[in-house]
Each structure stands twice: as structure tokens, then as C-alpha cells.
């Protein structure tokens, strides 16, 4: 096939099959979808970060410190993994979405990741500072049964650990605020022993 024939054959095919360029709006929409998804995931990531901050500040670290013998077990038991995993997931999805916008490929991976982290951090701080993170967390506990179940499971585990700790160390006093745990909503029988007071 000569050069001339190939191009002409393609043109003939275009005409015979009545092929037309796809409309511009379709391409614009695709680009916008990635931007909108990127924005949504970064907001979700920021909310996750805000809630992580809220839960970390609300955690009774003194109590955790007493219950955990090593730093590793302290970290393992006290961190809000659900939100941290969601934050990591949203960072990856945002990265993917921005990368797939029209000019997203031009951004350096390190720059893009740093940008996402900085935006999430600032927005997360705003959500945390404004009390939105706390509000969302409470709303989720009230209106999302699976989340409440997850939270209760964590609290039950914590309660068991406290009970075990007290059995093993009857002479050791747990730090104040422990009684706050009694306010939690358990769907099991309350402990038979009288609540501790400090």
C-alpha cells in the first residue's frame, strides 16, 4: 500500500461509515468528572483528618498509658484506624482523580502528593477547629448503625481490657476520667462490680 492510498483509504472509510468527531462536551464532562471526584475525595479526606484529630485529642491518653505496657501496643490500641485508613484511601483516590484530569500527568508525584496532604491538613484543621469534625462523628454515631457498632466494639474491647487490668493489678489506681466510659452505650449487661470512683 502506498502512502497516498493509506490516508485516502482512511478518508473513504470515514465517509462511508459516516464517522463524525465526538462532541466536545463529552470530553469536557469527563475532565470535569475527574475534578469533581478529586474535590469530593479531598473533602472526605479532610473530614477524616479532622475526625482523626478530634478522636486523638478526645482519647484518654493517661488511661491508655496505664493499660498498655509498650509504646507499640499503645499505638496499636489507641489510634482511630477507621479514619486513618479512610484518609489514606482518599489521598490515593484524589491522586488518581487529579492524575486523570487533562493536564494531571504533568504534575510530579511528590508535588501532587504534598499538595494533597497540605490541602487535607489545612482543611482538616479547619473542620477540627470549627467543631465540624466532632459534629460529623457524633452524627455518624447516631445515624449510622454500622459505625456505631464499630465504635461499641472498640469500647467493649476497652472495657474488657480495663477489667482485666484491674484483676491483674487490684492495687493500681486508674487515672481520672475513667468513669466517662460508663456513659458509653453498651448493649451488654453492665459490669457486676460497683463502678470505680477516683
Amino acid at each position: 500500500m502506498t502512502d497516498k492510498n493509506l490516508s485516502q483509504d482512511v478518508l473513504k472509510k470515514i465517509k462511508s461509515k459516516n464517522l463524525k468527531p465526538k462532541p466536545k462536551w463529552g470530553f469536557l464532562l469527563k475532565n470535569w468528572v475527574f475534578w469533581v471526584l478529586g474535590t469530593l475525595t479531598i473533602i472526605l479526606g479532610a473530614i477524616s483528618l479532622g475526625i482523626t484529630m478530634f478522636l486523638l485529642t478526645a482519647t484518654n491518653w493517661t488511661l491508655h498509658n496505664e493499660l498498655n505496657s509498650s509504646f507499640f501496643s499503645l499505638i496499636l490500641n489507641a489510634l482511630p484506624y477507621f479514619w486513618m485508613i479512610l484518609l489514606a484511601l482518599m489521598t490515593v483516590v484524589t491522586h488518581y482523580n487529579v492524575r486523570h484530569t487533562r493536564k494531571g500527568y504533568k504534575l510530579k508525584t511528590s508535588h501532587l502528593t504534598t499538595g494533597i496532604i497540605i490541602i487535607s491538613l489545612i482543611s482538616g484543621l479547619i473542620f477540627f477547629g470549627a467543631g465540624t469534625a466532632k459534629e460529623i462523628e457524633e452524627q455518624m454515631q447516631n445515624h449510622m448503625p454500622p459505625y456505631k457498632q464499630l465504635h461499641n466494639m472498640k469500647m467493649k474491647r476497652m472495657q474488657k481490657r480495663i477489667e482485666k487490668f484491674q484483676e491483674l493489678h487490684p492495687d493500681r489506681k486508674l487515672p481520672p476520667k475513667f468513669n466517662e466510659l460508663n456513659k458509653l452505650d453498651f448493649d451488654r449487661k453492665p459490669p457486676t462490680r460497683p463502678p470505680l470512683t477516683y
Partner: protein
Amino acid sequence: MKNTNSKALKDEELVRLSLENSDNFLHLMQRYETRLLAYIHRLINAPTEDAEDILQEVFIKTYENLNDFDTSLRFSSWIYRITHNHTISFYRKFKNQPSTLSTGESQTFFENLRDDTDIPNQINQKLNSKKIATLLQKLDKKYHTVLILRYLEGKDYSEISDILKKPMGTVATLLNRAKSHFKKILITNGHDG
């Protein structure tokens, strides 16, 4: 539009005219046909008929997606990107052997690469075109592609970035690694003559 008139027009203007009338797309195809056919051959060792089929599909795809062309890019980068992606898909489907460069291409490739790399002199003298082509085949596909784009297609970093849809920094790293791998292969295999 007459052929003489079309030659004076930029690719971007031809894109605009092709959107108005498909006949004008012929000038764009004719402008890129030889280059893209050669590029397909350089990327995969497809028989001529297959390469022409790939190119036909590339042109149709390009025509259908003309409205997606971003005028801030060079048209050549865009059509090379479509060709590259389509050819690689074809390669994955049919697993052709890596391409073999012709004698002239190997020579041009090596001369361009040598100007940009510190390859020991004793290796330069012992290499012939066939050997260069064989050694190039030993490279990983991603290194092979980036070397072809840089030293045979003569694309700059920004164009390679647009064709491969990778950040410029990644292109620079890929190219450095590709050169370094090729140099290693040259040193370990190049002395056999």
C-alpha cells in the same frame, strides 16, 4: 483545499478545518503517515500490513477524538500519544517481538545517543549497526521506547512527557536510566564485535 495551500497551514489550523470538513483531515494524515508508520515499526516488530492496519485505526481514532485535542499541546505530541497507546495495546494483544531497527536507523540512533552519553571510544569502534539494534532489543520496553522517542524521533523532554503522559521529571529519570542501562549492555556485550 489544495495541497499547496495545506502545506502552509499549521497542524492546529488543519485540525480546526478538519472539524468543519472531513476532507481536510487527509492533509493531516498525509503529513504524519510516514513518520508514524516508522514509529510503529520502531516500537514493535509488526509486519508492514499490521503496522498499516494499526495506523489506519490510529487515524480513525484521531479523527473521532479531534474535539479532545488540547490546543496547548503540539498536535504531533497528541497524535504520537494516540499512536503509542494504540501500538502498545496491539503489542500486548499479539505479543510481537521487540522491533529491529534498520541499518540506517541504528546508525542515526547511536550517533545521537553518543553525542549525549560518555560511551568509551573502544566500544564506538567495535560496534556495527546490526549489533546496536540487537543490543537495543535487550532493553526493557519502557527504556527502549524513551530512547527511540529521544534519539530517533528527535522529541524533546516536554514532548516525550506529553506523548507518554508522564511528568517531565519522570521522563528525565527514565531517560537517564535507559542510557545507563544501554551503556551497561554496551560495555558487557559490545566487545564481542
